[in-house]
């Protein structure tokens, strides 16, 4: 098992995560919306797994051991997570502003 829920707050990726683990990860992420993804012991992520992480926009925890993951994939995932959060935050803020306006009227 390379994708597992450690506790409610952390999903850990270890070793080589293949294509078929994308779906497992997807389910776990859906089950724990607030969880971060710990990947210090991860050695390889299949494109399908990376795709799930990009779509989920979760923050990653730790630094993986391989150069490729640390140097090339980590920044992409971080950017994606930040972008999604900002987008979510903006949406929430504008929703709140609209509601306020409506209430005011």
């Amino acid at each position, binding site marked *: 098992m390379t994708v597992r829920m450690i506790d409610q707050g952390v999903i850990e990726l270890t070793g080589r995560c293949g*294509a078929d683990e*994308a*779906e497992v*990860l*997807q389910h776990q*992420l*859906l089950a724990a919306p607030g969880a971060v993804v710990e990947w210090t012991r991860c050695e*390889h*992520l*299949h*494109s*399908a797994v*990376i*795709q*799930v992480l*990009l*779509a*989920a926009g979760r923050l990653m925890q730790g630094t993986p051991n391989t150069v*490729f993951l640390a140097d*090339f*994939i980590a920044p*992409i995932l971080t950017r994606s997570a930040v972008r999604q959060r900002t987008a979510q935050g903006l949406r929430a803020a504008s929703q709140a502003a609209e509601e306020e306006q409506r209430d005011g009227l």
Partner: protein
Amino acid sequence: MDELLAQFLIESRELVDKAADDLLALEKAPGDRQRFEDAFRAFHTLKGGAGIVEFAAMQTALHCAEDALAAARSESRPVSSLDIGNCLSCLDQVAEWLDAIESTGAVPVDADPADIVALFAQAAGSEPIAVPRASNAEWIDGLLRAHPAVAPRAQTALRYTPAADSFFRQQDPVATIAGLPGLLALDLRQREAWPTLDELDPFACNLTIEALLAPDSATALAALGDEARHCEIETLRGRPHAADSDSLVRKAAELLDAQVHLLESAENTEQLGRIASAGLVATNVLRHVGRSAEADAVATAAAVAIAERRLQPLLEALAAAVQGPPPAEVAAVPAERRGAKQTVRVSAERIDVLVRLIGELVVSSNAMGHVTKLAEQWSSPLTGTLKNQHAALGRLVAELQRAVVGMRVLPLSAVFRRFPRLVREMSAELKKPATLVLEGEETEADKAIVETLVEPLVHVLRNALDHGVEDAAARVAAGKPPVATIRLRAYRQREHVVVEVTDDGAGIDIAKIKQIAHDRRLLPADELAALTDQESLNLIFLPGFSTAKTITHVSGRGVGMDAVRTAASRVGGHVDVRSALGKGTTVRVTLPFSVLVTQVMTVEAGGQLFGIPLDAVVETLRVDKDKIFPVGAAHAIVLHDRTIPLVRLAEMLADRADVRWDDTGPIVIAQLGGELGAVQVDRIGERIDVILKPLDGLLAGLPGLAGSTLLGDGSVLLVLDLAEFVR
């Protein structure tokens, strides 16, 4: 003239020169991609400029040239000699129009590009002219901007869009890119906006992978293998170097080969997929190495193969592509691209004004020297101060001179660049194949000198090709290569610039020269007979001498080597010739580095003051009266075991027989066109820097005078051309 038009003129002229250079270089090395691109760019920029000043005729003409070049590019063939000729004609026409703009200050309304259009239409025949595909590369810009740190090292940009079912097919696209050699940067993008996590299909690939790679695109192409068909690969900087290009071609050939093997080993059931895939990869590969014609052929063949459900058409097209000629060989690209230097464009006239002013300043400084001497004579208490100030002024003026001379300095390439074309045309006209080799074109000289060189060199080159070089048959018979070599070599020799034109032609037949000189009564027979070989050679410099049997368009227009000598001596230079029968001829033009300042020595003779250019003076000496011995009607002295003809300046200048001169006066030994001459004067004065002005008015054309200059006391000093005296 309006400023825009003025700027357009300056830039267009530069571009015309540049384009002509590139075309000529391209003719020598048709595979030189860099030159090709340079030429193409020059034409394109010229056309753009024409559009800005709304000069439609020029735009049309240049468009034709551009099309011809583009056609060569899209067909991946070297530019033909015909195309180059046509493009040069187009540049000629453009230059003519530019002249018209310069003289009238407006775009010529009657300019007609029809001739140029016809020229290119004829060359193109009925074939439609292909337009190069522009690659839409916004993603590359974005990628480079996102990774500024590695962008300068990246040679290749890659965008990989894996098939949506690639995860099913056991592919890991990100890992594929991770495995590429020299990965510098990676970006992952979604093809369609990410759905919410619960709606995401984890098995459908929605990724686009963009990457920057350090190695050339061929390396990436080879490493990607079959997946290359899902990639856009762009070479980022410059063109691949010759060696890379070789490997590119080799790798491309390997990939093509691999496709053939794939197809041949395919089972019937999977054939269609294989055909499509192999066809795509091969097309991609061929397009990438610039063989788009073959790429199109393969793509068509693949379509036919799929439609007919058989391999044969594609296999044939691939075999043709594999064995087909490699793309035009890529000549070594001149790596040297000068770093951007900060320059200010200043018109030549402004610098000329500065030069004139410096001239006046020199005269003024000399005047102060005169005043200083007067003060000395009157034992003025100011003498010391004056002397110091004069010395300081002298130094400053000298420095200023050097600086201004430096501003006017041009590399000889400014003139040399027009010669390859001249030789090309003359060689075609005379049907004597010849190549021009340029050496030392980076040698610099004062602009005025560089410009002086044009006319003489044109004459010399014409002569070399017309009279010097034999036709191909005669050359082969003489055991020489059929194509003649004319070498134009420039170098700096102390304060002089020397330009040599050497041909490997027949050499000058001295007997023939003497015969012609005799026939044209240029010299009396007895004098002719007494001439040494070198002196006989020099007969070609006599006015009215021309050895051409027939008047040709190229030379023999009544201007010959005498024109060359006149032009050179006008700026204080000289010309000499050496020749070996059957081996070739060298004409050497020696000119001063700068016309700005001439050092002269003042001498007195017959009660008058004259100047002698110091660069001609070898030494000055006194000899006893009895060491001067008569030779016929003239005199001579013996110096270092050489007999040197001697003239007495006062005697030469005297219009009356009763002028007295000092026959024990000092003697100036001068170097005159390779020979020594001695001139006896009454007194030797000082050395001064002068600005030599050519004689005009009444004195113009007077033999024996090189020019005049103003002295510090306001009087005029005539500067002698000693060569005329000793002759």
